[in-house]
């Protein structure tokens, strides 16, 4: 539970020195409570008070970063059980398993898929972010070679997997600068893994056989000074792993369990031998609280649906996804093709462009920036009206692309047709269907 401004104020020096940038300690406390200030801005706070405040202001689920640079993956940091309560913060990472006993050609093709399987959607690049390198050979030199190969050829973040700490150390020799995740620390090797993690400033994943044991192990790791921890409850049945994810999330958020306040790692790849079923299992953990999801392989037909599902569920419910303003050419339109205009709410765009494609009528689709609002909402808010649509139509360049000057507006914006004819001299405004499903019939009947 975050402290209130007054509670924070009690721990401050109360000297009102003003060096933090605001005139009084009370004002500073209020800023701290709302996240507008950093505790480090106060030069006089006692170490004791600092420790106390830092602990209470720590997020209930610690954000953990795997990797370095732009492509580093941040997981954890979640604050709610249900996305409509606020939002899900950091989407889970997908990892592909690569073993040091795999044929070299198989390793190469997997690394290649990691790079190739990226998709553009609503202006975002959807891609997997992790390679889990597994020691199956028991040979440190072999493992080290593979880690080196992954590091050289790939831009993904790394998970080092071995039950033997010496082999993990061999892998770390090559890629410690990449801040890989070490897996697993268990009851037999906890101290050794803690030392490796601290020496290399790497996150470490704890594996237990029960949730009870998991809390004990993370408590020990925390005591020894390791901060960045990922949790594996050890469950390898769908039901148990599902329940563990829920209990871990809820214990951290609702019971303030510090020892479970970390992101998780799940292994659909160890729950079935069927890659298709594995994908559906993974989809459960995208929705229900997986932090890192380790898959046996990446294939386009399974990775793409998972990436889209993840994009959807991790969309901020308060900030709808928007599509870029502009002219979208669908099906190779020419100077006699119809011109439609709609809002830039991404869902509107997907539905309208999908229906246009289904109609097989080549069409220009104009997307007007409505700040991500749908047609009706943006019309009501004055963002999709004659005054804003007309300047966009004039400057977007469509005038020179078609011979006819007929603009089809959404049925729900019919009230703007008069205003648009005034604002767009020379254009004829046609009122199209209200619902996307009626677009194909409308377009098929359309004549320039």
């Amino acid at each position, binding site marked *: 539970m975050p402290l209130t401004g007054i509670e924070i104020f009690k721990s401050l020096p109360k000297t009102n020195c003003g060096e933090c940038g605001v005139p009084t300690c009370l004002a500073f406390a209020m800023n701290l409570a709302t996240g507008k200030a950093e505790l480090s801005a106060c030069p006089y706070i006692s170490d004791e008070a600092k420790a106390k405040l830092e602990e209470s202001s720590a997020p209930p689920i610690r954000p953990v970063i795997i990797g370095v640079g732009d492509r580093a993956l941040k997981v954890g940091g979640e604050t709610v059980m249900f996305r*409509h309560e606020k939002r899900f913060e950091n989407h889970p990472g997908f990892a592909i398993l690569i073993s040091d006993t795999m044929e070299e050609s198989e390793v190469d093709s997997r690394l290649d898929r990691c790079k190739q399987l990226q998709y553009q959607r609503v202006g975002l690049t959807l891609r997997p972010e992790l390679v889990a390198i597994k020691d199956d050979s028991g040979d440190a030199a072999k493992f080290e070679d593979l880690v080196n190969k992954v590091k050289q050829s790939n831009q993904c973040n790394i998970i080092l997997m071995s039950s033997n700490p010496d082999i993990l150390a061999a892998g770390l020799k090559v890629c410690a600068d990449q801040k890989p995740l070490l897996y697993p620390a268990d009851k037999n090797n906890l101290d050794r893994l803690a030392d490796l993690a601290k020496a290399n400033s790497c996150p470490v994943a704890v594996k237990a056989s029960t949730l009870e044991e998991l809390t004990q192990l993370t*408590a020990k790791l925390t005591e020894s000074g390791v901060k960045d921890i990922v949790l594996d409850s050890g469950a390898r049945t769908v*039901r148990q792993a599902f329940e563990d994810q829920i209990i871990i999330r809820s*214990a951290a958020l609702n019971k303030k369990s510090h020892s479970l306040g970390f992101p998780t790692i799940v292994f659909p790849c160890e729950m079935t031998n069927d890659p*298709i079923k594995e994908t559906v299992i993974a*989809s459960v953990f995208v929705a229900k609280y997986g932090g890192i999801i380790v898959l046996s392989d990446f*294939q*386009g*037909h399974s990775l793409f649906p998972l990436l889209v599902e993840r994009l959807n569920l991790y969309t901020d419910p308060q900030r709808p996804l928007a599509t870029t303003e502009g002219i979208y050419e669908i099906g190779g339109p020419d100077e006699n093709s119809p011109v439609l205009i709609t809002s830039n709410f991404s869902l509107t765009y997907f539905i309208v462009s999908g229906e246009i494609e289904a109609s097989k009528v080549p069409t220009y689709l104009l997307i007007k920036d409505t700040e991500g609002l749908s047609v009706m909402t943006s019309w009501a808010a004055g963002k999709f009206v004659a005054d804003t649509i007309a300047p966009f139509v004039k400057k977007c360049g469509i005038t020179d692309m078609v011979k006819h000057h007929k603009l089809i507006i959404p049925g729900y914006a019919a009230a703007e047709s008069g205003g648009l004819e005034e604002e767009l001299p020379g254009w004829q405004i046609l009122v199209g269907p209200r619902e996307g499903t009626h677009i194909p019939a409308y377009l098929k009947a359309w004549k320039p």
Partner: protein
Amino acid sequence: MALEIPKTSYSGKIREIRLGKGDKSITVGGETAYPFYLFEGGIPNLPKIAMEVYDSPPEEWPEAALEPFAGVTDDPVAWAKKCINDYGAEIICLQLISTDPNGLDRGADEAAEVVKRVADAIDIPLIVWGCSNEEKDTEVLRKVSEVCQGKNLIIGPVGEGDHKKIGASAIGYHHTVIASTPIDVNLAKQLNILLGNLGVPDDSLIMDTTVSSIGYGIEYCYSVMERARMAGLTQQDEKLQFPVICNIGKEVWKAKEVKIAEKEDPKLGDARKRGILMEAISAMILLLAGADVLIMRHPEAIKLVQEMIAELTAE
């Protein structure tokens, strides 16, 4: 320090409703906890999957979706029987696509006659889904109610605009009503109240809060379903304590991403597997949000989801 397992405090229960008639009727609903939260409460009736049958041959389906039904797509009775005999369907959903005024615009009598033939040929529950045009659905579904009197069909979509006429005939001829609203928990509640006021019994109503595929706004549907379930189970909102039905198959298989051939875009992989997975994943996350009945298309997607239901409830 012993681990304290957190528990949600539930104060409500989803109503149980019976679909269909006789030995093969199916009860859904009855949950006392969030979907598959078995450590917190019960799921007396597992979610069920209905298989789609169309009343006219589908035109825009990708090959992967047509192949399992080769030879029967022009005969709804044969199609329904194939679903039962070859794919083990427990519920059939007859989609009355032919009645759409923007399409074939088939009349009410003819459509109802097809429904009657299918209803007479099968002994499992039958869902009858109209074309979502309120005027036309009113005409067609009232006729369907009449000619299938007493069969306890599950008919819809019934929206605010057509709820009185369709609702009244469903009450009169003893069918279950699908209360359909556009992705809004308050509208869903309001329609349930209206139907209740009209006289639709609480055990003859199932909600459709509207669904879409992954990639097409499923997050909105997901959150509305979660909110409805939360209100019903933890906030004693009796008017949201109804089971939920999701007509998801047709949404997924109309998405452009299930139609793109692998050679057109190799990064999307095998088109057939991709379509099956998009349907299975869409259905799976709707189950996690509270679906009690899923209407699905591809037998392999259905099998995957059934296996997941079994795994999530395994002893």
